[in-house]
């Protein structure tokens, strides 16, 4: 085949360019330590990297959220335990008040101490978190949940709502970080509308002063305990004192039960957030591994490719130089 002088240069430059381009590609990959620098390097992998980074980010956020939930619930957990302690102390006072040998002045003393405990209780139920939000006012967190009026008997009224702040901890799972006080402690200390003793027909018209309404037993018991103490200190011990005291104790028990249930729910949610945090941590590793598989460079392979290309390039340069020196004119003198 006939070869023109230009052909020699064409072949040489084409080979040099192809190999130099391959060199820059490998060099770019090596300097970024990434196999996929631009989407065109591997279009499928680059879309997968985006999607996996998204999934990783979402998973990380859920893990962070689970941590937030746990921290917030930890605060609620310890507050609920303190509240349970206060109610237990109240109950002790009520048991002590049942001691028949107490004088009206002893009972007066008990009432003073009890009212102090009620203030402690309301103070704790009005606890705020680190952002100054009330913990037990539902979602209406700038509103003090419980208003205590102690001048004329014990009156505790709930002002919050029944909402719960929920935080997303997985794609379809939310965990509540607060519990409305109405659910945990009750919403009013006012006794229910007149309830009659269930023993017809003789007592049909006798109202039951110890009646409580479901969910409000604790607050209504506080109101009633204060009431019977007032009645007892005003004069001789009323005949129904023991019955009333027993109803009050029942109320405290129901309240303790409610607080314990709420505490158990908080504990269960803390446990769940712990589990989710651990799951999140292992998911993060998994996602990182997937991303690494998709975009990271096979270093030995690339370095060996680089060496190979370098050698080929050097060989091409050498042959180019040799061939370009060949000319008949050198021999024409």
């Amino acid at each position: 085949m006939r070869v023109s002088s230009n052909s020699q240069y064409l072949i040489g430059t084409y080979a040099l360019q192809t190999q130099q381009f391959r060199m820059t590609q490998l060099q770019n990959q090596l300097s970024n330590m990434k196999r996929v620098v631009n989407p065109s390097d591997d279009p499928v992998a680059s879309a997968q990297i985006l999607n996996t980074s998204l999934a990783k980010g979402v998973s990380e956020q859920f893990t962070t959220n689970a941590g937030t939930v746990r921290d917030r619930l930890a605060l609620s957990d310890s507050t609920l335990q303190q509240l349970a302690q206060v109610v237990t102390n109240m109950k002790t006072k009520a048991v002590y008040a049942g001691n028949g040998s107490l004088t009206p002045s002893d009972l007066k003393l008990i009432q003073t101490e009890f009212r102090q405990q009620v203030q402690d209780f309301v103070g704790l139920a009005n606890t705020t978190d680190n952002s100054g939000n009330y913990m037990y006012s539902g979602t209406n967190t700038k509103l003090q949940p419980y208003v205590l009026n102690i001048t004329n008997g014990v009156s505790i009224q709930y002002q919050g709502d029944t909402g719960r702040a929920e935080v997303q901890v997985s794609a379809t799972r939310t965990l509540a970080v607060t519990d409305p006080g109405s659910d945990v402690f009750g919403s009013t200390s006012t006794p229910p509308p007149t309830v009659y003793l269930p023993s017809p027909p003789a007592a049909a018209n006798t109202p039951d002063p110890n009646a409580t309404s479901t969910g409000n037993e604790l607050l209504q018991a506080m109101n009633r305990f204060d009431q019977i103490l007032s009645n007892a200190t005003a004069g001789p011990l009323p005949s129904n004192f023991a019955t009333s005291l027993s109803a009050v104790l029942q109320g405290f028990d129901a309240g303790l039960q409610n607080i314990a249930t709420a505490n158990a729910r908080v504990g269960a949610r803390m446990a769940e957030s712990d589990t989710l945090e651990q799951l999140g941590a292992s998911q993060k590793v998994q996602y990182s591994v997937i991303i690494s598989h998709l975009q990271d460079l096979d270093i030995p392979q690339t370095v060996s490719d680089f060496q190979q290309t370098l050698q080929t390039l050097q060989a091409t340069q050498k042959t180019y130089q040799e061939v370009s020196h060949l000319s008949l004119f050198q021999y024409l003198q």
Partner: protein
Amino acid sequence: MGSAIFSTAVSGLGAAQSNLQTISNNISNVNTAGYHRQVVEQNERSPFFEGFGYTGRGVDTAQVNRVYDQYLDARLSSVTSANSFYQTQGALMSQLDNMVGSNANGLSPAMQNFFQSMQTLSSTPTSIPARQAVLNSAQAMVGQVQAMSNQLTQVRTNVNGQVQSTIDNINAYATQIGNLNTQILALSQGNSRLPNDVLDQRDQLVQKLSEMVNVSVVTQSDGSYGVFIGNGQSLVLGATVNKLVAVPSAADPQQLTTAYSTGGVSTVIPETLISGGQLGGLFAFRTTALNRTEADLGSLAISISDSVNRQYRVGRDLNNKPVTANISNPALGQFFGDLSGIQTSLNNAALTAPAQVALLRQASQQFSLVINDPALITTASSLKANSSVTMTAAKLLTTSGGANTGTMAVTASQSTVGAFSPVPPVVVTNTGPGTFTATGGYTVAVSGNNLTLTNANGVTVKLLTAGAPTGPTNANVGDTFSIGTSNTGALTTTSASMVAGTLTAPITVTNTGVGTYSATNGFTVAQVGAVLTLTNSNGVTVRVNTAGVAGLNDQFTVGAANVGQAFISSVSQVAGVTPTVAGPPVPPAPLGPTPPTATWGPLTLTYNAATQTFTATSTVVPATTYTVTPSPNVAGAFQVVDNTAVNGFTMQFQVSGTPANGDTFVIDQKALSPAATAAQIAADNSQTDNSNLRAIDALQTQNTIINTPSGGASYVPVGGSVPNTTFQTFFGQAVSFIGSTANTIKASTDSQATALNQIKQVQQSFSGVNLDEEAASLIKFQQAYQASSKVIQMAQQIFNSLLQL
């Protein structure tokens, strides 16, 4: 004889000289682009008859030919054209590729940050720094979209510039070819004696023209070239040159296209007809890659703005205000700039793809953040749930209309506060459209289809109205309605309480005689003094305290209170994404119906323990039906869908605890200015209610957007398509599209470069100059010249020796 030797030798000298001339021309032009090596054609001269036979008389130089194969050159120009077609695309594609390549600074992480900042806010909805962080990340996302849009605009401007300069080049080459056509015609001395170097120049211009655009060349009978582009538009015909012009496209003035100018009239050449070369490459890049990328970005901007705005508008902000209350112009009450106008324009099936791109480009350019006050982020729901339904006992109310001319009728009453026992009955009179007065010291407020009567003592009664169509506006001025009780006696119920068991449905009690009563639902009634005791066979016992004496047939109702300890812990409206109404065009996303609407009223949810679901009813709109199903988005939550297509909306609520069968819950909207007092608004201000924010945030993982149709014929999904992908997956697909297009073009560029190299080799091995060959020829003809000189010298010696005789 001697002179014959002379002339023979001189002809040899001449032939060698013209060969040497040609060889030196070949050597000189070894590096000239488009040069075809030339060879001298030499013939023997006619012989001379000498008697004994013919003796030769030397050599004639016939002509100088160039080594030229028109098929090889045609192949070279078509491969050159294809090569520059892919190279042009490749260079532009790599710009796009690099632009989206660096995902560390890209839009995808910006979107992710936006949703993450909302997640952070959802755990502390009252925190102003967390709210500000949401706005900052939203601004960053908007900035990314705009930056990408600007870069795309730069690429487009760049393409326009190249289209212009390519067309200028095409015109310049065409003009030169036209000139050379004339010149060659003048210089040619018959068919065999052609000006080779001018022919080379003209062929080289055709090669260069091929680099710009694919052309077909036809040699005319007079040897001039006819050059055609597209589907036969002549660019050059002999000396006539028809120029191309760059004109803005009618569908999208932002893109330059090409038109054919002849006789002062320019006709646009469809871009599909321009194939190959730089111009074809520019058009192909624009149609396949650039338009699609711009369309994707625009669709993304529209979708984000639409779905976030819809949800944003149904919530309440930090101060329990609805979005519309914050700004005088409700149209401004948005999170992102409103792109629904563009969306509406896009839903025109007659739009061409470039026109769609022009609109979508506008969308990504106009994508902006409107909200600037962090307090305005609507984290809270606009709904609230009242779970503490207490037991009720009330007199039945009766209503009657006068001789009215309007169609409104008072159909029922509900939720009274205080004892409503007017004697004589309260008369309500219509005084104008939607305004009423009442007797007995009552004032009338109209809210939707409700009339609410209130007196100074706070006694309140709510009345439902009906008519054809429903509503207070259907009363005529002067129409009267009398509201009272049918009871003749003065007995009122003061309170009711449960003694044993649970009451799941209201009981109606009727007086049947002195001290005797009947009751519905299998209850028997015993009266002791002012106390009625209602008992059924299951031992369920209710006490009702009364005052006064009942008349014969007087009726009372006793309502049930909730038995279970459950409450609704969150309730919010779900605005959803663009509704998927069947049939083109896709409707623009209407903003979700924000309560209150004319048909909004409190919803009563009743629990069914057997099926573990709720039924929903609205006393205000009895015609509306609701479906309650488990929520697809949040585990354990329920979803209420209003089945009326026009005002249809979706709500989501979460229940805490286990309700008892028949327990009811009421969902109402939160207090709203100016109807509610400041105190009511404050009481409903649930700052840590993040249910609306969670609904916005859920958009991240919901299918909110429809994949761009592939093929490039249209960039807008057909009507009736259902959103099938998330924002980020959509963007991932856009990135993947750019990547794979760039990849394909890279591969084609490589293979075309190889093909070009090969055809160049073939063409060069045929027409190219080989210096060694020329050197050998040089020696050959030098020797021939020397030999001829020697012959002359020898002839001269012969002549001299003859003269010396």
